[in-house]
């Protein structure tokens, strides 16, 4: 058997394509849900850390440190295999989304915090002097400026979340990787794995290029 028919076997690829595409759909569902939940969670944590009383801030800090330290795979296995022992039984989909969201929120919170801290103090003072409430200061003045700054690192984080969805295959989630390994077993040929790898590339490469462009543009636009 030559290399070509082993790794790039077109009939095998075509036969497994529907399975791979249904896996891609699941990957996108997990990824997009986790990204959205992670953004909301991270923004909430970052703003809480800015305005909440000291002990709440300490809890938020602790949360961020813990979930930035714990390996995602470990967290996922704990959520899926350990929590049922205390009566919390999440579906594979919810386990994956929960684990990804918990970790993504922690990273996103740090990104937002850095963005908010990059806004000159005078913007907070001008808002305060005008009598704007904390909420309006954030919504109208600080966040619109901070979000421009954090778009590149946030996009980066989204790429990471999307890549980490592959870990969901260990909790029997029929995502792209899981479908590919099953197709490989079925056809006794690794081509579906190569196909899956290519699909990940096609999905994420443009995002990587976009991040690079954004980073370049924003570093140039800095005054």
């Amino acid at each position, binding site marked *: 058997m030559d290399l070509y028919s082993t790794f790039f076997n077109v009939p095998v690829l075509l036969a497994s394509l529907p399975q791979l595409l249904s896996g891609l759909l699941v990957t996108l569902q997990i990824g997009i849900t986790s990204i959205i939940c992670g953004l909301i969670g991270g923004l909430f944590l970052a703003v809480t850390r800015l305005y909440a009383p000291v002990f709440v801030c300490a809890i938020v800090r602790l949360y961020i440190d813990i979930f930035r330290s714990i390996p995602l795979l470990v967290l996922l296995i704990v959520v899926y295999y350990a929590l049922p022992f205390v009566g919390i039984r999440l579906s594979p989909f919810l386990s994956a989304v929960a684990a990804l969201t918990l970790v993504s929120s922690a990273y996103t919170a740090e990104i937002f915090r850095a963005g908010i801290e990059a806004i000159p103090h005078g913007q907070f003072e001008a808002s305060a002097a*005008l009598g704007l409430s904390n909420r309006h200061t954030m919504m109208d003045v600080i966040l619109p400026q901070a979000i421009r700054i954090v778009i590149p690192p946030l996009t980066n984080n989204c790429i990471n979340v999307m890549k980490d969805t592959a870990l969901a295959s260990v909790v029997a989630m029929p995502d792209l990787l899981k479908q590919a390994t099953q197709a490989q077993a079925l056809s006794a040929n690794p081509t579906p794995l190569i196909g899956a790898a290519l699909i990940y590339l096609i999905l994420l490469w443009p995002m990587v290029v976009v991040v690079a462009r954004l980073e370049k543009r924003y570093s140039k636009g800095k005054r």
Partner: protein
Amino acid sequence: MSALITISNLKKAYGSFTVLHGIDLDIAQGEVVCVIGPSGSGKSTLIRCINHLEAFDADSEITVDGIAVKPGRALAKVRAEVGMVFQSFNLFPHMTVLRNVMLAPMRVRHTKTSDAEKYARALLQRVGISEQADKYPGQLSGGQQQRVAIARALAMEPKVLLFDEPTSALDPEMVGEVLDVMKKLAGTGVTMVIVTHEMGFARQVADRVIFMDDGNIIEAGPPAQIFDQPVEARTKSFLHAVLDH
């Protein structure tokens, strides 16, 4: 004469360094007060305490229009009554000039968008930059930006305007246009407290000049008295250093 702003025993320290040593000062409705003094004398800190941008000692007391200045709900009321213009403008760079001026009335006073816009345009006209309304602050010169900042402060129809060295960050050729706007304002009856190094302006516009040094008010009085017949040695040496060169 009833005081609009009362400041009594105002003390403020950063760690072991005392910035204000118990200032007492009353400012009347409609009065224009210029605060002068060497840098580090506490004059900026003094006016930043009036709208509580700086916290101060618990046994100090400031009231604006009868409302005690302290953290809490009433502070929003004080800040709505007290406009401030900063040395570094602090305009919101992501909004047009017009939006900068409209924002606070819409958010704090819940003014209708159309009314806020009408008033904002009138204010921009008043400070002489109505044709820049749809530009962003970054596209304007320093002098124009500071005039927008004045319009933004005026949009809340404040009883008091605080100016924290409003011309210190400007190129020399732009100082005049900002001072002209402030002169016009001084004639409208709004109470103004101005920290400035522009002695000519202070002499011309102020009802009262306050000289500060080392966190104390050294001398206060009408401009003619402070500039022409200062009593205190420190006032004399400061004015000598600033005026005779």
